[in-house]
């Protein structure tokens, strides 16, 4: 399934996560799709875009009613061999954070690289 365009990041599935934890189920359901694809042996890239970058802020807790949040799921990504985590550089700047401060190791990408990412993956799912 790999295509050899040599653009650095490629794979079967690009999952674009554009929402933060707790507020909606988009992030959780997007991550679930990524985990299932990885469990089926697919190569998955996660792109945290816009508000989605807040998923990687350290120190998250469960919600006041016991809502689970998504940080425990994120901590499992490595176990599923999902190790390509990208964050939109501009969104990171909005939060005043640097990539090194995030809870997981992630690579900042510029907006101009986003179009490349969509074409170097077989399937793109936006959440």
């Amino acid at each position: 399934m790999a295509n050899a365009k040599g653009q650095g990041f490629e794979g079967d599935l690009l999952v674009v996560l554009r929402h933060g934890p707790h507020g909606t189920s988009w992030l959780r359901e997007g991550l679930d799709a990524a985990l299932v694809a990885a469990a089926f042996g697919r190569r998955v890239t996660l792109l945290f875009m816009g508000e989605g970058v807040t998923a990687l802020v350290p120190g998250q807790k469960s919600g006041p009613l016991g809502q689970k949040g998504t940080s425990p799921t994120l901590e499992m990504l490595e176990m599923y061999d999902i190790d390509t985590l990208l964050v939109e550089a501009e969104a990171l700047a909005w939060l005043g954070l640097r990539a090194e401060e995030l809870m997981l190791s992630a690579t900042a990408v510029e907006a101009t690289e986003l179009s490349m990412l969509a074409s170097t993956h077989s399937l793109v799912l936006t959440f």
Partner: protein
Amino acid sequence: MLLHILNRSPATSEVFRQALAAMGPDDRLLLIEDGVQGAVGALFGRFSGLEGRLYAQEEDLVARGLAPLCAPSVVRVDVEGFVTLTEEAQKTVSWF
């Protein structure tokens, strides 16, 4: 060439910026549902630079009474044209 599909109005949602950021130089953008508001008046300005690559779903323009206001450079396509656009693109990416 990818087809990006946007269903949000640029008057109320910033999602169009994500679509634009993710678009390559040959990619096309199809406005559907409330997204067709982006084909009208000053909102059309959000998509400047996409001439010839900007499409709007005809039925959604008509249902909203916006067809007469649609900017002339926007290519209007019916649902069959929508399918054709997906045929011509390598893949589609939806922004909502």
